């Protein structure tokens, strides 16, 4: 919780943590180690690393939040429909899920970003299209289970419409597994964004993407290990934070739920 709080705070109020601008660059001071002026040193173009990472938190959270939100939205809608209506809706949805699952996730994301052209928007769309399947599967399973329960029959008996049953009775039950999945998924999205940047197809500069910084940092690992170390740690702790948060929420909401 504390980790996430710090990261969210950094994303919301970067000025609290650093006075330096993430884009101010001093090429002559590139790759310098941590010092009083640059507490975490500078990156490959002589920008203040602390400031890059602090401002990068905003970008990473944005990418993670929107892509996971998008994935969850698609997954919930399709999963609800598939589970509720069954028959061909279910078949079509599940075949679609199978098709997406047939591709290795990172390859599919890579191809999608290449097709959409690099940039924040493309990365978000690509990740959402890669991650939605797990939500659809879980939501469908829960919907199937709920639909069979007595109270849904009861609601129907007193004349409730499909939409009302879906929204009022089934959706609330679907929410807790989705929230848990989404929290854990935030971490995966942060890592996925950095991997895309490492493979050369991520967010475009000069955006202070953590993945981009880490990708460049690995090239300068021998000369300026601080870049890869600090940016790697930033990613790792964020993911760690989301994983712990996800575990916590799971214990709170649904001790029986198992991630697939």
């Amino acid at each position: 919780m504390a980790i996430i709080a710090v990261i969210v705070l950094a994303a919301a109020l970067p000025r609290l943590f650093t006075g330096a601008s993430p884009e101010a660059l001093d090429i002559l001071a590139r790759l310098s180690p941590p010092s009083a002026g640059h507490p975490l040193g500078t990156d490959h173009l002589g920008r203040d690393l602390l400031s890059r990472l602090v401002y990068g938190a905003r970008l990473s959270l944005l990418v993670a939040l929107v892509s996971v939100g998008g994935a969850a939205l698609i997954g919930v809608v399709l999963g609800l429909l598939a589970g509720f209506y069954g028959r061909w809706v279910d078949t079509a949805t599940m075949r679609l899920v199978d098709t997406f699952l047939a591709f290795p996730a990172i390859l599919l994301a890579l191809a999608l970003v290449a097709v959409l052209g690099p940039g924040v928007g493309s990365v978000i769309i690509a990740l959402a299209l890669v991650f939605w399947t797990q939500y659809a599967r879980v939501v469908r399973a829960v919907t199937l289970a709920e639909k069979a329960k007595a109270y849904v029959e009861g609601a129907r008996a007193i004349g409730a419409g499909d939409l009302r049953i879906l929204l009022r009775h089934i959706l609330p039950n679907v929410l807790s597994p989705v929230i848990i999945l989404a929290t854990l998924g935030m971490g995966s999205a942060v890592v996925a964004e950095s991997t895309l940047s490492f493979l050369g197809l991520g967010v475009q500069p000069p955006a202070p993407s953590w993945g981009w910084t880490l990708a460049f940092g690995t090239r300068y690992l021998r000369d300026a290990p601080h870049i890869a170390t600090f940016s790697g740690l930033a990613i790792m702790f964020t993911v760690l934070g989301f994983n712990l948060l996800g575990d916590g929420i799971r214990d709170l909401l649904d001790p029986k739920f198992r991630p697939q």
Partner: protein
Amino acid sequence: MTGFRLRSLLLIVAVALAAALPARGAPAGGVLRVGLDVDAGTLDPRLANDTTARRVIEQVFDGLVELDPQLRVRPALAESWTQVSPTVWVFKLRRNVKFHDGSPLTAADVAFTYTTILDPALRAPLRGLYTPISRVEAVDNETVRFTLSAPYAPLLKYADIGIVPKAVVERAGAEFAARPVGTGPYKFVSWQRNSRITLEANPEYWKGRPRLSQVVFNIIPDNTTRAAALESGDVDLIHSPLSPQDVARLKTSNRLRVTEMTGLGITYLNMNMADPIIREARVRRALAHLIPQRTIVRQIYREMDRPATSVLLPAWSGVYTEEIAQPGHDIARAKALLAEAGWTDSNGDGVLDRGGQRLTITLRTHSEDPNRVQVVELLLSILRSFGVDARVEITEFPGLLQALLSGNYQVVLVGWLGLVDPDRGMYNQFHSKGSQNWGKYANPRVDALLEEGRQKADPNERARIYREVARIIATDLPYYVLTYQGYIVAVNRRVEGFTPIPSGSFRALWATTAP
């Protein structure tokens, strides 16, 4: 029970230790292990279009001629040649040269090689270099005649393409590319895709038996991993492309020897003359004035590449001159030029504008080269702080190439490699009908000069012509040449007798030893 446990524990430790120990040294006779960046696409010299294919093919095949370290043409399979008329060349072949399968080299093989390259059905990627050739015939067993459709001075420099055995190619078909048979110093042994290509000495090589018994080309895509493999002794030789930070470190190792020279490549900004903003000469000049060329070379390239002065390469001896200069780093001048052109910050939003339009410039490059990405990032920041609404688009190379070919770009940072001759580096790039003139640069004087250059064989005449073209280019600025790419070879000190050649050629492997 305890005894059994202890024994199995010891066994595990022993296996782990054994696995961790370095492998045994190479057998005597000399095996050279080279580290290269990409796998070869083909080993058929006529189809080769990547650097690895060329490096391997140079060992397995010979051309009619070969280029020495100064890029001068030297006899190889052809012992001598004469230019009978401006459009007719006659080559005399060396006698008693044998292909690796034992069959003798004849004029028919040479004619077959060139005729098939010119045949569109073969899909030879470099066919364009040879299209001025209208006919190639075997006069007798040792004589070949080339007939050209127009005088073409650079022809000899391209006659180093490997000669293939007609009979073997016709028998093997497409499989020839995977099992090449040539006349070169090393014979093909095996090719594990994406992993390694192994060659062995050809004891009957016409220059004499090579010293190495085996050459192994290892494919290691990542620059840093490849450098690490050299440092750890897993390979003996690596060469460009290398990362500047790795080169700086390799130079400090006392187990290694690093040779640096100016290569045959340039890195440049391609300016689109058809773009409404960039087409204006003052904007291009202002851009050039804004580029901190020396800082880029010192900081990003760490002097691995050299600051370029013009489109002429230092390797073109006789043609190159330092007297031509592009606009230097001068921010005040840039500001003045843009103001002259009407670009000022009239609404005080910090961005230059003219007639309600913002000065928007998109810089593009490709993601495969981290140095170019850094340069573009730096230029972006400079342009922005200067009041230009600058953007960046970094894509994979095929995507960038598509943008270039369709003319859908403003400024692109990209490069040329293997410019063995001024014609190769300028004709198609700057001629208004040139096939790589993507920015639609058109200057009748340049067209006339480039045509003239193709017809003149006299070195002084060629120098005069190409220097004038370079001077015009430095003024018109369809290209701003950022660097002359360095060519760097790093070898383990146990390797002897390897002479690097700026073209990146490994012809010197014939005389190399690795005891």
